[in-house]
């Protein structure tokens, strides 16, 4: 057996309200490619953040042995000194600096504070050759595609004499050609003795390149599969990832959806505003009936949020084409204002950055989308009506707070989420697009939010539920659309739907593209 490079023992990490990791053990052998797989929220990134010192020693329990020595990482710098380098999903390059400047950023080749540019450039050229990137070191990184930027990141890691390279979803943003190139590079590096840990959702890639595969679920290691012979198949990995029994975590809904279609989207196509050559949504069509909860699932980057936001008054994307029918009639929704006016509501996936006004109180946050309907005379808010309405919703949704004049920034995640939900209930829409309505909130609050969703459906509202937590979508939806890479790749009825079925839809479409 090969030498053990890294051993993480009994790692437990708790965030306020959630235990992200419990008793996780991970061992990585020198010179292997070790894959870590799991659903969103299974704890993969948390584990890697602990390993790379993003969460400093003391914020978690357990110990880390690297090269046989116990390690105490107080910062990323400490772990990098040992040769552990993490490359995050969001690349951390400075766009207006050259490749060479980026590669040696924070690690400048300098003598007494004066940068030695000759050495910087020659060494960068050498590193670029190693990662098979055919660009001059003086090119600005903003002019490179994502694939090439990824390679620059790896060159940067190599410049630090990396021994253990961690890649978080390295191929998520890459096309197949770039992905292939990156994976080959990893194999080359392996031949040179560099160990890597790769976190990936693309199981077909994992099955090809990983020597061993560790499956995480709900913050615990389920199993470590030996793929030395490349015998492990996707189905086997999926089973480990999702093989949990769904207990009755979801309240039952007694009402049935009506036959009346509330929202129909036809042939919806959207371009990425930052990369106009890239289609983010490709000819998507779907329907939602009144009183129906429709789930929209897919892995990160599948385009679910982009789809919902582009429908909601073109809040995302450019060159949008396709048709929206509301209650059977074509609707033009050029801005959120019109969308709200026509009975649409969109609950954002990130309540802090784009949902709440954190410095304002609960009352003002709830009334924000309905101000014109709370007016006595035109343009003048009737504060009494506003407070009465907000207070009513506070009671109905059970927002736990001493008063509705509390700042929303001081509330817990669950209560913040209920506040945003209250805003949209007050706006009295026909169709609600709920994007990750239970992200990062505790189990109790989740259950309450499920009850609210059921109430809304029972009242004849159409609900689109976007969520990365598959059990939630399975438990709540009457029907499920599966999205992948900007397309709808499957429609499952409640009876057909299972985690395996959803994963299969996604994997199948990945294979078709490949």
């Amino acid at each position: 057996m090969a030498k053990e490079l890294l051993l993480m023992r009994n790692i437990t990490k708790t965030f306020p309200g959630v235990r992200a990791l419990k008793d996780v053990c991970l061992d990585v052998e020198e010179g292997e490619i070790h894959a870590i797989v799991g659903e969103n929220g299974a704890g993969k990134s948390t584990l890697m953040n602990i390993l790379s010192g993003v969460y400093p020693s003391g914020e978690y329990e357990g110990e880390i042995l690297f090269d046989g020595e116990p390690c105490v990482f107080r910062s990323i710098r400490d772990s990098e000194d040992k040769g552990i380098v993490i490359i995050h999903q969001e690349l951390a390059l400075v766009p207006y600096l050259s490749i060479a400047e980026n590669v040696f950023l924070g690690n400048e080749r300098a003598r007494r504070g004066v940068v030695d540019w000759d050495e910087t450039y020659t060494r960068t050229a050498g590193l670029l050759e190693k990662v098979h990137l055919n660009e001059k070191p003086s090119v600005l990184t903003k002019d490179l595609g994502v694939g090439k930027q990824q390679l620059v990141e790896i060159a940067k890691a190599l410049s630090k004499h990396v021994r253990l390279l961690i890649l978080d979803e390295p191929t998520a943003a890459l096309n197949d050609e770039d992905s292939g190139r990156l994976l080959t590079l990893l194999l080359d590096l392996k031949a040179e003795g560099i160990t890597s840990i790769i976190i990936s959702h693309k199981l077909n890639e994992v099955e090809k390149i990983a020597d061993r595969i560790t499956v995480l679920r709900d913050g615990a290691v389920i199993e470590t599969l030996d793929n030395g012979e490349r015998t492990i198949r996707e189905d086997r990995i999926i089973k480990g990832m999702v093989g949990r029994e769904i207990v009755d975590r979801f309240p039952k809904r007694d009402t049935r959806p009506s036959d009346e279609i509330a929202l129909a989207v036809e042939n919806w196509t959207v371009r990425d505003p930052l990369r106009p050559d890239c289609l983010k949504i490709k000819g998507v069509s779907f329907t939602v009936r009144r009183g129906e909860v429709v789930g929209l699932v897919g892995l990160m980057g599948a385009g679910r949020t982009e789809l919902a936001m582009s429908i909601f008054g073109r809040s995302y994307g450019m060159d949008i084409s396709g048709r929206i029918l509301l209650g059977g009639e074509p609707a033009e929704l050029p801005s959120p204002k019109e969308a709200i006016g026509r009975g649409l509501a969109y609950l954002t996936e990130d309540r802090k950055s784009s949902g709440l006004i954190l410095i304002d109180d609960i009352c003002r946050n709830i009334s924000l989308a309905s101000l014109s309907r709370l007016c006595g005379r035109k343009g003048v808010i009737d504060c009494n009506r506003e407070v009465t309405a907000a207070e009513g919703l506070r009671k109905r949704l059970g927002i736990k707070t001493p008063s509705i004049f509390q700042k929303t920034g001081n509330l817990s995640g669950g209560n913040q989420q209920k506040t945003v939900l209250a805003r949209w209930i007050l706006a009295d829409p026909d169709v609600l697009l709920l994007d990750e309505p239970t992200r990062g909130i505790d189990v109790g609050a989740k259950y309450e939010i499920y009850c609210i969703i059921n109430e809304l459906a029972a009242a004849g509202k159409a609900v689109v539920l976007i969520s990365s937590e598959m059990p939630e979508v399975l438990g709540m939806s009457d029907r499920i659309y599966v999205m992948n890479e900007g397309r709808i790749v499957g429609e499952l009825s409640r009876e057909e739907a299972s985690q395996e079925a959803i994963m299969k839809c996604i994997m199948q479409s990945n294979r078709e593209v490949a």
Partner: protein
Amino acid sequence: MEKMKEMFMANIRQYAMMVALIFIVILFQYLTGGVLLRPLNITNIIQQNSYILILAIGMLLCILTGNIDLSVGSVAAFIGAVAATMMVTWKWPVLPSVLISLLLGVLIGCWQGYWIAYFRIPAFIVTLAGMLCFRGLTLVMLRGQTIAPMPQSFQKSISTFIPDVLGGADLNYTALAVVAAAILAFAFADLRSRRKKLACGFDVISFPLWALKILTMGAVLMAFSWQLARHRGLPVVLVLLGSLVLIYSFITGKTVFGRHVYAFGGNEKAAKLSGIDTNRVFFLVYANMGLLAAVAGLVFMGRLNAASPMAGTNFELDAIGACYIGGASASGGIGTVAGAIIGGLIMGILNNGMSIVGVSIDWQQVVKGLVLLGAVAFDVYTKRRTAR
């Protein structure tokens, strides 16, 4: 009692600045041997600071969006120059000249607002450009000379006093009557809103407490108007300023537009996704700043009785300072018109008091700078404490 403590803690910044203002008044009343609150000096303080306070009102809206407007001093000077040219050089009648000046102010505001709101050029840059451009245009307009004096009728309508129609001898009865009427109107309106709140079942302060609040407020205002009445009565600018404060307090506090401004400054993305036309809000805030800069320009010109090329220098900095001292947040979304006025008064009374005591201009600047820094440091400190 708990509730009152909570309310106090929530508004600690506002109360603290109020307390600071009262402290400064008492301090200088003592240091100046009673000169500060003499009728003549009170009138002076109002007239010296009216244009800064008018600018501070508009500036508050800009600051609520998380930006500032650096051009207001230059715009005020430019409007003054244009109005003076119309009235003095071209001998146009006063009223049309004033209206055209105000309209021009709005147009200037729209011009800057367009670049800021729809082109999204940072407001700092657009208004810095405006600051240079309109100062230059002022010089062009006046050919570097001062135009003076203004026509009598303009003089009379701006830098004068409300005439005493009730015919008091050494006391201006009209001033007392107007202020008393205003207090009664306010008390009546407040009582009505209190009744409505009770009808909806909301918590209100108890009646004795309410009465105490109204009586204290009334007493302070009556004492103030008494002092004014002993001089020459109510200055016209005070009535103008008072109306503007009421109007803009109403807009920021009670209207949909006001709420949109706060929402924009608090979280633009969230505001947009809640159906607010954020670009329009942004545009209107700067258009309005143009209007108020024009008003301030005319008031200043009226007081000086001249349009000078260097008028309005550093007005923008005083207005911005007033807002920050008054509790506005530099990152937007927090602040009130009343706060900005209190902030402006703190600066104004510091100026006036120090001048009377004989502190030189150089040291006045130092003190003002430290007060600004201290006020904001206090703000950051209390916020950090409450966050914990």
